[in-house]
């Protein structure tokens, strides 16, 4: 048997998680090898052609702040861009871009190929190598073994994957790619608990068979806002593609209802749990029977392909039903389906086996990131891949793992939810899952996370200096605005009147004026003669900090409380069943999840506030005993 010992870290899979993990490890100076079943499928987007969207846009910004690649890559390859919810509060503004799928994939592959310390290897990984409870490498299909110091699983939806299109079942990964059929068994032998999830994708239709005149065009934003904090906005302004909106109708729904017995979802062929938030069109028709129509968005898959994505109509119906179903939609009467819609079932891991660092509790040196942890979505996957990669590298470097908590980022909320809750469906990010949503905005991800990225070595000195400069700008400008008072003169009144604002009764500071809902930093410029030059990015922060201060301060106080229990660590050797005052159910749950701190313990379902009170006393008792 050939043994290869050239690498520090092995990454299994090169999807959105695997790419971030591989780049992070290599950039942190580790010799890294990334395995993929097909080099052509690096950073493949097998489902929707977008990056970002509500809350997912936040994740991309956070990935970028920490030094990940996704934001930069979509900035290079987008073909339409939109800030969702721009009329709402800043906390729910979310950037979403249409990607040119092939370009996205090609561009990411280029980055990987040229990354120092990183090797790409096309091979199915068949076994995890474990010695003394430690991951020591992987074996590939040719029986060659790679001995490494850490392994990161980014297996996505490939483990024992099977695709269903009505009665037609194929044992492949997405897009007919080879599934990974052996690794699951090897992981089970290492003690990994596996569950089965399901997801699906709609058909792709030949653009020449679509009649857009029956649909409403959807345009991108102008100006375009980049995802990455490092992208110069001026460099990405360009002509954008249109998407189109149409609707299903009762005819569509009748076709679906009369063929439900042929849907593997309803006939019981599919065993995996599918997501409720991203339902197939069959699900929508059954669950929301009172709705007479559902939205359907037509989105191009790229600039150099005729394939269009039918957003809103994922399905696992047989092909003949799909044809009828899609053709019942206005504008799709003559639709030619290039790729059928299908559902995919796959093995993934129960999140409770993982530490917040994304290392397996039972197998040290084994990390996991991405859809295989029970999430869904490219952005969720990339975020975890980045953290798993960083922590695999930190593990090899013998350093404390990087853990983002719920008050620091959506990444923290995502990972904490995955490892602390028993989820029975693929997990999707939503802004409502973040308790401190007003603080975790997409616009301030750099202020929240850049320093952490710098500490682990993924953010350069230059990038950090840019952040410090921006923070200084914000601070000194707010201070200046607080210090300047404008009197209730005729001139001031005229200006305020012209801005639709009420004149002043007594003098007010510029800050007080900005706080008025109808005014902002830019609008009051005529009242502020000696204004210094301040960057757009800083002005955005200044407006938000001034306008929403009351709300922000309230959440900051809540965060301070949160931090207190989050900082209270629980030693790993505790047997919760020995703590008498804790109820039996809670003892079992605590032993099962082995929370790392009091905060995580309090979020486990079945653990009551009283159990946590008792645990607090117990921990304090242990501390005092140990200090004796």
């Amino acid at each position, binding site marked *: 048997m050939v043994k290869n010992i050239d690498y520090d870290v092995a990454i299994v899979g090169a999807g959105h998680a695997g790419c971030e993990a591989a780049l992070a490890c290599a950039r942190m100076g580790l010799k890294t090898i990334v395995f993929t079943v097909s080099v052509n499928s690096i950073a493949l987007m097998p489902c929707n052609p977008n990056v970002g969207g509500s809350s997912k846009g936040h994740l991309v910004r956070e990935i970028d702040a920490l030094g990940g690649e996704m934001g930069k890559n979509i900035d290079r390859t987008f073909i339409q861009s939109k800030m969702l919810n721009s009329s709402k509060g800043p906390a*729910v503004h979310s950037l979403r871009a249409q990607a040119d799928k092939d370009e996205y994939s090609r561009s990411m592959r280029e980055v990987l190929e040229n990354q120092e310390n990183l090797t790409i290897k096309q091979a199915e990984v068949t076994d995890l190598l474990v010695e003394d409870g430690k991951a020591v490498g992987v074996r590939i299909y040719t029986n060659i073994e790679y001995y490494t110091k850490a392994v990161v699983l980014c297996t996505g939806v490939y483990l024992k994957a099977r695709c269903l299109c009505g009665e037609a079942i194929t044992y492949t990964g997405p897009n007919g790619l080879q599934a990974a059929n052996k690794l699951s068994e090897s992981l089970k032998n290492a003690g990994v608990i596996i569950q089965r999830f399901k997801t699906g994708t709609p058909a792709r239709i030949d653009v020449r068979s679509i009649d857009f005149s029956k649909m409403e065009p959807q345009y991108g934003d102008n100006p375009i806002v980049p995802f990455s904090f490092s992208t110069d906005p001026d460099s990405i302004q360009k002509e954008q593609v249109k998407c189109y909106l149409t609707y299903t109708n009762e005819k569509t729904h009748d076709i679906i209802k009369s063929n439900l017995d042929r849907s593997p979802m309803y006939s019981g062929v599919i065993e995996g749990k599918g997501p*409720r938030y991203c339902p197939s069109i069959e699900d929508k028709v059954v669950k929301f029977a009172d709705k007479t129509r559902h939205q359907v968005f037509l989105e191009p898959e790229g600039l150099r392909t005729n394939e269009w994505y039918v957003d809103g109509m994922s399905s696992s119906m047989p092909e003949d039903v799909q044809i009828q179903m899609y053709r019942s939609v206005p504008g799709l009467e003559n639709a030619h389906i290039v790729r059928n819609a299908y559902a995919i079932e796959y093995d993934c891991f129960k999140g409770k086996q993982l530490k917040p660092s994304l290392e397996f509790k039972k197998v040290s040196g084994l990390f996991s990131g991405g859809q295989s942890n029970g999430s869904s979505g490219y952005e969720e996957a990339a975020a975890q891949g980045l953290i798993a990669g960083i922590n695999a590298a930190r593990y090899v470097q013998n350093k404390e793992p990087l853990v983002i908590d719920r008050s620091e980022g959506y990444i923290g909320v995502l990972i904490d939810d995955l490892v602390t809750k028993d989820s029975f469906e693929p997990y999707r990010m939503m802004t409502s899952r973040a308790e401190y949503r*007003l603080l975790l905005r997409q616009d301030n991800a750099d202020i929240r996370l850049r320093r952490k990225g710098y500490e682990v070595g993924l953010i350069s000195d230059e990038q950090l200096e840019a952040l410090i400069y921006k923070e200084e700008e914000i601070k000194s400008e707010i201070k200046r605005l607080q210090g300047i008072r404008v009197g209730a003169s005729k001139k001031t009144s005229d200006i305020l009147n012209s801005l639709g604002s009420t004149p002043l009764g007594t003098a007010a500071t510029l800050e007080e004026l900005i706080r008025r809902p109808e005014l902002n930093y830019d609008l009051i410029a005529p009242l502020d003669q000696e204004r210094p030059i301040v960057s757009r990015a800083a002005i955005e922060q200044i407006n938000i900090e001034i306008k929403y201060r009351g709300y922000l301060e309230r959440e900051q106080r809540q965060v301070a409380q949160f931090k207190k229990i989050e900082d209270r660590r629980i030693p790993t050797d505790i047997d919760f069943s020995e703590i008498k*005052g804790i109820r039996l159910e809670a003892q079992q749950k605590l032993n099962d999840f082995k929370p790392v701190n009091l905060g995580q313990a309090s979020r486990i*379902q079945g653990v009551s506030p009283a159990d946590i009170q008792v645990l607090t006393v117990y921990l304090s008792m242990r501390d005092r005993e140990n200090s004796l």
Partner: protein
Amino acid sequence: MNYISDDTIAAVATAPGVSGIGIVRISGKNSLKVIDKIFRNINGETTDIINATSHTIHYGFIYDNDEVIDEVLVSVMLSPRSYTTENTIEINCHGGPFVIRRVLKTVLKNGARPAEPGEFTKRAFLNGRIDLTKAESVMDLISSGNEFARKNALKTLRGSVYKKIHDYRDRIIHETAFIESALDDPEHYSLDGYPEILRQKIIELKNEIENLLSNSSDGKVLSEGINTCLVGKPNVGKSSLLNLLAGEDKAIVTDIPGTTRDAVEVKIQFGGLTLNMMDTAGIRDTDDTVEKIGVEKSRNAIEISDLVLFVIDSSTALDEDDIEIFGSIRNKKSIIILNKSDLEPVITIDNIKKFSDAPIVVVSAMNEEGMNRLLHLVREMFLSGEISSNDQVYITNERQLSDLRNVDQSLSLVINSIDNGMSEDFFTVDLMDAYDKLGTVIGEETGDDLADRIFSEFCMGK
């Protein structure tokens, strides 16, 4: 929920009872600030207890705004020389159980929060005041105290109030889920014109909660009395008991014709409490008359009463009628009265416990025995909900009321946000606060309710 906190907590620190004297204890960094807001000296002037020396006692009055609540002695114990090692204030009250609760309420309104069961002791332990060997008993105290409080809280809430609060929660999370669905999928759900609709809904909800609050306060028990229903089979001694209840405290028995509450027929003063005896027509006939009140009719009375007194003749075996009554009072505050203790008993307390966990009191209406214990039980149920022994003191109702008041405040903040033209994502912050607090009132955790609700009610995504 605060687990490691240095905020300021308060509770009644003495066992409840008929005694008029009790102590309200405040502990935490703001204790002195709290007392300075509500305490004035004999001349009605504010004082500076904040500057007082440790271990001093101050004579004066507790004020709720400008209303005098009680004449008190206030003890000051400064950190670290107190039980919890925090700044501690003890208010010695003299005005009886109601007044003690008013004092506590005033304290809670002015910057303290209700203490968790065992929380004073927990703090004493965490701050090193209590010996390591006592750790286990501290943990026991917390867990048993919470268990008791939880049961007690649920008991007082069974039935209609529970249903109401459940309904409030449901309405709040429905609106929140709608907003969140629209924020998550803005191309699918529109919020145009929604704030005005929400405003109306929140105002309705606030009105209902404020109504519930004013009805739940002690004042109602005192001024309007407790709607009480006396049930039991014929000949178990209901009328003798009624006469005894009326006579014992030489109370006024009045017929109240034409009152809107048709069911209320007699008001009885019983040990300082007013019992509105309901549907007593059949009962006031003498024992010899065959009573016409059937189980069916009693059930209607049970439905609208605050308290059910179920009278059982201990000298006769339980039969199906009794069991049916047990069933109909299951969700009610009730007391089982085992009458005729003067006769040879056939029924034991254990027999009854099989059917009901309501408190049982053994009386003999004939020999006028057991009435004090009945009085004590009624008072305990309506005036305090407290459990005894120093530190475990915990006022279930007060906690729930305090939570409800917070809910009301959160809803006011939602209205503020709407009126200030904030965008919808700001509404959900306070809506979820209200939702969480309503959850604590009925002992339900929040978990993933919102996400579940969004997925089940709104058709999301691609």
